[in-house]
């Protein structure tokens, strides 16, 4: 019985408001993301059957190949120009039919346009790859069913030769889109993870520090000295800014070292530089600036939220909204291209200041400079707004009369 009493007491300690709130938040985030990812997946599955073809040959064999693809379940649309390609297309060049008739390996050009670096964006180009495989098998089977001789063994082994061309940043290179994406993603892959970690660590650090200062009443003591409250707030933000500079610098240097290591590997990066997808030194500075802004925003929000915390424990609750607003764009940026989301969701996600940090790397690589600059401008405006709120909070009684000790923000009256 004593054990049961102890167990009951321990369970009551563990199952607290923080835990329940955390669970509720997790469920909400997962419901939101789950529904959202299902929407993306459905769209991409549709894309798996969409296939664009440019037929320069217009021979009987090319028409036969088109019919084969249609009967294989592809929604084939025949287009005339490269400009009409959405993401990728197969191009039958002239001589396609003649080569097949002569049992010679024939070329099919796989032309891809890279406009997004998200994981799901690579799904659509795989329809073209699937189609090539079907065409290749078709002609292999055709030979096997006819006459296998030494003359057509080469054709049997390799009926189709794929020539890949990829367009990115309005430049075209004879390289596969997957290689380009691999290189581009490798430059920004660690970015969201580090940003997420920095924001979480820095925010918890600041909100806990403020909550501690409130709990120890050192803040009360400080506010009764002949120093303006704005000076106290500015000192806190400046210290946070210093931390932000150090953290941003460490990150940028670390990132640069990582990229130097990446560049010194077997991959020849000259081509990627020519295509404009290799981050330059200036790009690193821009990323550093945006990271600095991001951390400042997170720290300023943490100062405001920490000001409403009664103690360290409640500080963890108060920064929950901040964590969610980081988590949502973090996951979305990994899975999808935020700028291709449905307008309302895109608008909401773009309102979150951290979204622009997660999209900064891909925007720089894909030379979406306007989007990058708009992101920085929005973050600047957001920062000014949150600093204004912080000044208001520190200049009012709210910092001592409102706390988040209980479920709701309630007045804490200490008479």
């Amino acid at each position, binding site marked *: 019985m004593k054990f049961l009493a102890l167990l009951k007491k321990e369970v009551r300690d563990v199952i607290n408001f923080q835990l329940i709130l955390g669970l509720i938040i997790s469920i909400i985030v997962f419901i939101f993301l789950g529904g959202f990812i299902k929407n993306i997946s459905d769209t991409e599955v549709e894309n798996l059957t969409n296939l664009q073809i440019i037929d320069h040959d217009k021979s009987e064999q090319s028409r036969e190949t088109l019919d084969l693809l249609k009967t294989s379940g592809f929604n084939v649309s025949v287009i005339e120009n490269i400009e009409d390609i959405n993401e990728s297309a197969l191009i039958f060049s002239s001589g396609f039919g003649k080569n097949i008739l002569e049992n010679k390996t024939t070329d099919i050009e796989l032309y891809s346009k890279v406009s997004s670096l998200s994981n799901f964006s690579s799904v659509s180009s795989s329809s073209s790859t699937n189609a090539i495989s079907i065409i290749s098998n078709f002609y292999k089977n055709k030979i096997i069913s006819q006459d296998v001789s030494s003359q057509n063994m080469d054709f049997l082994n390799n009926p189709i030769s794929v020539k890949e061309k990829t367009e990115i940043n309005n430049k075209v290179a004879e390289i596969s889109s997957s290689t380009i994406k691999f290189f581009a993603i490798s430059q920004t892959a660690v970015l969201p993870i580090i940003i997420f970690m920095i924001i979480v660590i820095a925010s918890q650090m600041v909100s806990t520090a403020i909550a501690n200062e409130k*709990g*120890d*009443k*050192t803040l*009360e*003591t*400080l*506010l*009764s*000295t*002949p*120093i*303006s409250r704005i000076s106290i707030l500015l000192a806190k933000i400046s210290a946070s800014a210093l931390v932000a500079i150090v953290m941003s610098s460490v990150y940028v240097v670390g990132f640069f070292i990582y990229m130097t290591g990446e560049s010194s590997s077997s991959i020849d990066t000259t081509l990627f530089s020519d295509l404009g997808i290799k981050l330059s030194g200036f790009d690193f500075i821009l990323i550093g600036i945006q990271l600095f802004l991001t951390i400042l925003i997170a720290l300023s929000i943490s100062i405001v939220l920490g000001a409403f915390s009664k103690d360290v424990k409640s500080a963890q609750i108060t920064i929950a909204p901040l964590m969610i607003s980081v988590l949502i764009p973090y996951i979305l940026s990994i899975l999808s291209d935020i700028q291709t989301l449905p307008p309302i969701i895109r608008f909401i996600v773009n309102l979150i200041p951290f979204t622009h940090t997660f999209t900064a790397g891909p925007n720089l690589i894909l030379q979406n400079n306007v989007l990058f600059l708009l992101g920085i401008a929005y973050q600047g405006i957001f920062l000014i707004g949150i600093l204004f709120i912080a000044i208001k909070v520190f200049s*009012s*009684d709210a910092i*001592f*009369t409102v706390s988040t000790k209980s479920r709701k923000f309630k*007045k804490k*009256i*200490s*008479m």
Partner: protein
Amino acid sequence: MSICLEVKNLSKKYGSTIAVKDISFTVNTGEIFSIIGPNGAGKTSTIRMISTIITPSSGDCFIDGHSLVKSPNKIRENITYLPDEAGAYKNMTGNYYLKFMASMVSSEKLKQKEYFENAIEICKLGDRLKDKISSYSRGMIRKLLISRAVMSKPRLAILDEATSGLDIINALEIRRMIKQLAKKGTSFLLSSHNMLEIEYLSDRIAIINKGVIYETGEPLAIKQKYNAQNLEEVFEKVAKNI
């Protein structure tokens, strides 16, 4: 004796709850004035308003003619405040803390040095001031904080529950410290629910309950008025009449 602090019709509301209702009193120079009352009576709200931590809903108070409402910074230059159960920056040493707080009070190096030396003399913590505050006992922290509160010889030192949670010896030392400093001209505004302590320390007291001051005067006079042995009995009788 000149007036150090004049409180005029001070009130504080939190939403629809009235924490302090239209209170008025004065504190003279070199006087120890105490506000006594039970928990939730309005002591801390009153003290927080006078300390410029929270703003009054109505009314005002004056120190050397400076208005709390109009120029809180001028009030801050003349007061020091020690909250109930306050801590100090645990990662600092006692010396560093005192120097840091001296620099908050004055930007003049000479004055900072003077305040720091005053604090060292008052707190009597000796070599322990070189240690981190995290290693201090509760009594040591309180002594450090009180020395911080009086090191600049403010016109008014406001101490909320100055000796709460301290053992008998530490509490006694701090009471003596307050008395000595008052003799040297510092005015004190104390708040406590320890009526025996207040009776020993105070020149005058105000009895507050439910945000209203019911009695103000010298402890002896108030005891005689209510025909009571001590202030606890006075408070009991006052509370019954409310």
